[in-house]
């Protein structure tokens, strides 16, 4: 439980007082510094509690705290006009959480920055009407914006690693908005930072990602702003930490009553928090309505497509997953009609020429589509199931007790951090194993060790077949040499093989065909391609000489939902066509479930649970796996976040490494370090496929699920 005493009633009460004057004319700006914490109101404000069972009565929710009408934002970049937003109309009511959902390039962050007045003035053209806190700020001066940000707005950004000043202590950074040390401590406490007093003296790099994002939140809520813009605040965090931050945001909103503009690419994350959802595409709002309606009964084909291509823990995995073909329009040359027209299965003639005007779908639910009423129930037909090739004998990868440490300097001493602490793993030819874990679990280190990019300290790595393993990375853009054409990049790999020179051109073309790219791409340079296309090129390069083993390091986590699904289908197709063994590293269990046959859960350098995907996802035996599963945000699901964050590999707990975060831990867990033991049905053939967990108290299937349900019920109460 976190105790909060909301301060700075000054800033907000004035702003609220200004509200009745809002209708139409610009009210005199609520110009109150956040630093007025010695305002007499502060001390009299009653103490309230954040979290479930809040004592605070919900604040009155009247009038919009921000509204935009027919907003267009255009950037001038390299001599071209980039139309980021085109005719957006939106109100954010006082105290509501409005989720702005869209893929990259949809303009969602642009809208957030517009409401903060943070666009560079010289290169940005803003047309339409913007009102924040009752003030017309369409053409406001920088100083007006600055005072508005100080008194009434807060912001949290995506990457907590880069959003705090690295050379300034936390205490000073928070004092800039809190005004006093005591208020700073109070805010840090409100953001759920343990031992806040001591943290004031820390530098940002001394804190974990989750703690840093809590510091950002503490700064955002200083002075009780009326509106907090949260731009992908959980995207860079581990899934268990994401669940904690989402819960904190909800608690803060309930207690402080501010409105939140929650910008995200993930409808599942939005579902956890949002009262209303606005779906943005190509700089326009496609659909806007209550969260439950948008999630359950989307009225726009794009929203429906987004929901369909979103991977969940119940996505059908017998065949290719549903996708949303095509790519978003180029913002420099926006289409004349509906921006979604060329990807829409239900496209009409007028969609290409006329921009659909938003029409009311139900009360308080607008949709911008000419085909009102024709969308719901438009399901893609069931995909044809995968045809698995006959299993090949032998093993593609055999790992035995693999350990890897790195040397780090700490003061005078140098210390070893153990990134891998003894990993055993067997992968058969044609089999896909997903390695799932949070940051610091060692999953990428293991991949690089298998690829031969790292020397291991202990153990053995055997690759069963001839031919070197190939790797596909998260950032395809950075892994392709920028000045070489795609054809050159592909043929480069053939240079070492004994393929005849004449056949190389054809081999390169065949590889492009295999990954579903048009032949024109061969002449292009990587920077001329989109993110999805680049990842396809990276895959093409990996398979132009079919490797026995394909190593994938989060290849989809930088991609939008619809593109990620196509890449996963592609991996699924290629591994069956080429009988490749695939080791697929991901932090996302839903992705692992779709792409893999078996999943291995890693925690602090060890595999703590391994087994067939359905076994592990449906009947997790390790509490950590259960915690990961309970943190996956999905519509209609209450998250149950695990405590704390992964321990640092510098300082691994004795006994079971997960013990400090475990709800099931007993005294024995403090001392005994469990190894992988059989956790599922004892008779499995081959033995490789057995379900194993490294836990003294391997959760019984029924027991764990009941516990999960219980926790969920408690949460929602």
């Amino acid at each position, binding site marked *: 439980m976190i105790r909060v005493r909301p301060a700075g009633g000054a800033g907000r009460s004035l702003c609220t007082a200004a509200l009745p004057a809002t209708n139409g004319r610009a009210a005199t700006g609520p110009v109150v510094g*956040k630093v007025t914490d010695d305002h007499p109101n502060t001390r009299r404000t009653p103490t309230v509690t954040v979290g479930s069972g809040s004592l605070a009565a919900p604040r009155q929710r009247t009038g919009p705290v921000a509204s935009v009408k027919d907003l267009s934002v255009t950037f001038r970049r390299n001599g071209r006009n980039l139309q980021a937003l085109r005719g957006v109309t939106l109100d954010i009511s006082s105290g509501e959480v409005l989720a702005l959902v869209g893929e990259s390039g949809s303009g969602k962050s642009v809208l957030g920055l517009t409401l*903060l007045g*943070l666009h560079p003035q010289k290169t940005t053209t803003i047309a339409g009407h913007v009102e924040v806190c009752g003030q017309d700020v369409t053409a406001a001066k*920088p100083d007006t914006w*600055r*005072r*508005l*940000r*100080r*008194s009434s*707005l*807060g*912001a949290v*950004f995506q*990457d907590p690693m*880069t*959003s*705090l*000043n*690295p*050379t*300034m202590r936390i205490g000073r950074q928070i004092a*800039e*908005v809190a005004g006093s040390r005591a208020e700073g401590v109070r805010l840090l406490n409100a953001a759920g930072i343990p031992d806040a007093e001591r943290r004031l003296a820390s*530098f940002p*790099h001394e804190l974990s990602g989750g703690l840093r994002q809590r510091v*950002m939140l503490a*700064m*955002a809520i*200083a002075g009780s702003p009326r509106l907090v*813009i949260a731009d992908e605040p959980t995207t860079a965090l581990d899934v268990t930490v994401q669940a904690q931050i989402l819960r904190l945001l909800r608690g803060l909103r309930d207690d402080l009553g501010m409105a939140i503009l929650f910008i995200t690419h993930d409808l599942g994350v939005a579902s956890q928090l949002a009262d209303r959802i606005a779906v943005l595409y190509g700089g326009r709002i496609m659909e806007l309505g209550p969260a439950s309606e948008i999630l359950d009964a989307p009225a726009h084909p794009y929203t429906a497509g987004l929901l369909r291509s979103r991977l969940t823990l119940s996505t059908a995995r017998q065949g290719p997953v549903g996708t949303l073909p095509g790519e978003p329009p180029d913002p420099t040359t926006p289409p004349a009609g509906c921006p979604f027209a060329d990807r829409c299965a239900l496209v009409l003639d007028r969609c290409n020429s006329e921009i659909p005007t938003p029409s009311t779908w139900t009360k308080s639910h607008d949709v911008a589509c000419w085909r009102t009423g024709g969308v719901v129930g438009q399901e893609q037909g069931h995909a044809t199931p995968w045809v698995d090739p006959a299993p090949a004998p032998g093993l593609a990868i055999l790992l035995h007790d693999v350990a890897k440490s790195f040397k780090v*300097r*700490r*003061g*005078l001493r140098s210390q070893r951090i153990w990134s891998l602490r003894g990993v055993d793993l067997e992968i058969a030819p044609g089999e896909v194993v997903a390695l799932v874990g949070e940051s610091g679990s060692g999953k990428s280190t293991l991949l690089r060790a298998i690829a031969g990019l790292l020397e291991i300290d202990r153990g053995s790595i055997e690759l069963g077949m001839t031919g070197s393993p190939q790797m596909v990375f998260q950032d395809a853009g950075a892994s392709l040499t920028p000045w070489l054409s795609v054809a050159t990049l592909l043929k480069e790999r053939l240079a070492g093989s004994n393929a005849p020179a004449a056949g190389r051109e054809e081999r390169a073309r065949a590889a492009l065909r295999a990954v579903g790219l048009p032949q024109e791409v061969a002449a292009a340079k990587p920077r001329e391609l989109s993110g999805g296309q680049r990842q396809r090129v990276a895959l093409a390069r990996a398979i132009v000489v079919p490797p026995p083993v394909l190593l994938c390091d989060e290849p989809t986590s930088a991609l939008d939902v619809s593109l990620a699904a196509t890449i996963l289908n592609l991996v699924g197709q290629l591994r069956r066509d080429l009988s490749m063994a695939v080791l697929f590293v991901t932090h996302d269990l839903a992705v692992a479930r779709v792409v893999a046959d078996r999943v291995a859960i890693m925690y602090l350098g060890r595999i703590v649970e391994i087994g067939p995907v359905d076994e592990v996802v449906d009947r997790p035996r390790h509490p950590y796996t259960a915690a990961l599963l309970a943190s996956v945000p999905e519509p209609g699901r209450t998250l149950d976040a695990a405590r704390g964050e992964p321990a640092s590999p510098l300082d691994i707990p004795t006994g079971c490494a997960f013990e400090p975060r475990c709800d099931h831990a007993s005294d024995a867990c403090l001392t005994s370090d469990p190894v992988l033991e059989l956790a599922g049905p004892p008779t499995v053939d081959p033995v490789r496929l057995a379900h194993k967990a490294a836990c003294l108290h391997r959760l019984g299937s029924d027991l764990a699920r009941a516990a999960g349900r219980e926790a969920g019920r408690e949460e929602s109460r």
Partner: protein
Amino acid sequence: MNPLTFAARRLGAALIILLILIATMFTLSHLSNTDPAHAYLGAGASKAAVAAERVKLGLNLPITTQFLHYVGNLLHGNLGVSYRTRNPVTQDLAEYLPATMELAFYAIILALLLGLALGIATAARWRGARILKFVMVSGASAPLFLLALLGILLFYGHLGWLPATGRTSIPNPPTGPTGFLTIDAILAGRFNVLLNALQHLIMPATVLAIGPAVSIGRVLRGSLVTVLREDYVRTARSKGLRDRAVLLRHALRNALGPALSMTGLQAGLLLAGDVVVEQIFAWPGIGYYAAQSIPVGDFPAISGVTLVLGLFYVLINALVDILQRVADPRVRA
């Protein structure tokens, strides 16, 4: 790494550089045609006297032994005897060095201040930044001696605002304890001397500082522009801080590293320019001393000056490295 360990290591590296410098000086003096024995005794000395002098100076010993003696003497602060002044070089340096140190000190401070002003003004696009940049870049593009002569013509000859030569025009200035005239004047309570000394410093210090200032300013501008695009600067703006607070409190410290390195590098160039500037302004420093010693091939004096300047250069750069660690807590860890 522990700050003390780091400082110790950095100073150790500095020592090695100095040793290389010493070896170079030693080799150069042996490659030259000047015979020290001849130089000391004068052109009319007899062969026997020269041979005796060679034995006295240890020039008959093997070259490695001579080098060890040379280094040993250096360690004892013995830089030899100047052929020209017949004084121990150490004594000469003690006389000339404070003037140079004072000039270099004010020049570096001025270069830093001007560099900061130029860097910040151009990065933040302050009004007047272009004029500042124009003036400073023009100044830096002109050769030192031209700039110095123009300065003398304008501010001394034409306007009569500033003196043209020497450290002070007041007779019997205070002579101790620091050797810095400005500081000694304050200690002695003679503020007219302080004022006068500062007037004498303005022109030579500015001429020396302008080139380094432009380099520092350009590097600072580059890193500031990069830092101003960082996420934490956006965070600072989103808090509603004033532009100046964002720039000076959040951006500047993070952008200072490259500018500090540049200051260290430029300090070396500044010392090189010092020899020219001291000549023009008749500044009684080691540059002036060196300029007198070079034409007569006074090797002990030349190598003494070189070693002292090298020591400065190495120390300043070591100091810069240590300062950078203070500026950035991430490197400290």
